[in-house]
């Protein structure tokens, strides 16, 4: 049950935050160059992501035996998780700008504003490419995280349910426009995702190397607690060292 809930929460948070960034880019393209080209670019990227999901999940991961698979997903989750955790620590210590999809939205709008629009009646390839690239890059991380979390003992169900909750939440935010983007504590949420993904990474990597965790799945809780304790110490240390 612990693994199920943590997988669901980790997938929902990670997917939600990545999709929020993709949404910011699509909204920026739509508001600057129109919905048609923004949605066409995003739709092209979603088709590519569906193909990537089929290749990574049912084909690549399904063909690897259990213990090597646990090592592979452990390494993948550690690479993602530690990167999110590193950035989270730097943001909470004031050593890096806070994460903000709203800021990303404004930057993308400004960049598109500088690009000349196509003649009337011609397809706006610049807008399509910007929207498509944004959705593809953010979505690829979602595909890899869901596939890795779904390769665990609990199967794909909790990861897919978490991803589904994230999609619904992000679509709702998109429908209510960009105002809620400014209110989300994105830096703290990303830090939490870093903790969860890193805990799963250590858990699966050790299991793949023949380790039996004391307490079984409950090990995820004390792994997460240990990562929070260590990373908060790093936040305090880095904040103290920050130039005044």
């Amino acid at each position, binding site marked *: 049950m612990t693994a199920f809930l943590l997988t669901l929460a980790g997938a929902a948070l990670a997917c939600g935050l990545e999709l929020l960034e993709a949404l910011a880019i699509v909204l920026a393209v739509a508001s600057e160059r129109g919905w048609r080209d923004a949605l066409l670019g995003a739709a092209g990227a979603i088709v590519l992501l569906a193909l990537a999901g089929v290749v990574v999940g049912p084909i690549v991961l399904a063909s690897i035996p259990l213990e090597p698979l646990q090592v592979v997903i452990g390494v993948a989750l*550690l*690479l993602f998780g*530690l990167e999110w955790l*590193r*950035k989270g620590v730097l943001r909470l210590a004031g050593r890096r700008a806070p994460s903000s999809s709203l800021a990303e939205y404004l930057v993308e709008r400004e960049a598109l504003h500088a690009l000349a629009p196509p003649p009337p009646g011609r397809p706006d390839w610049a807008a399509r490419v910007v929207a498509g690239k944004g959705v593809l890059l953010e979505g690829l991380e979602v595909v890899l995280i869901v596939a890795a979390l779904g390769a665990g003992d609990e199967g794909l169900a909790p990861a897919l349910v978490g991803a589904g909750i994230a999609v619904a939440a992000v679509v709702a935010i998109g429908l209510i426009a960009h105002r809620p983007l400014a209110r989300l504590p994105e830096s703290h949420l990303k830090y939490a995702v870093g903790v969860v993904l890193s805990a799963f990474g250590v858990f699966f*990597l050790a299991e793949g190397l023949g380790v039996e965790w004391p307490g079984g799945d409950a090990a995820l809780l004390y792994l997460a607690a240990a990562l929070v304790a260590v990373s908060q110490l790093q936040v305090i240390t880095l904040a103290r060292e920050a130039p005044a």
Partner: protein
Amino acid sequence: MIAQLRKLVLGETWTLPLGVAVTLVAGLALDAAGPGWWHRAGGFVMLAGAVATLAVSLRRR
């Protein structure tokens, strides 16, 4: 695009993939050597590797 994909998979600093690789190699070596304590306590070695990797990556930016 390639640079962004590389950043997506490997992150912004080489210290993270390097640290994860060192942790993995240490785990594989210990698993192969098979010391008595490994199956019960090896996870904490992996946790220490992850924590050390994080600490180094925060120092070398």
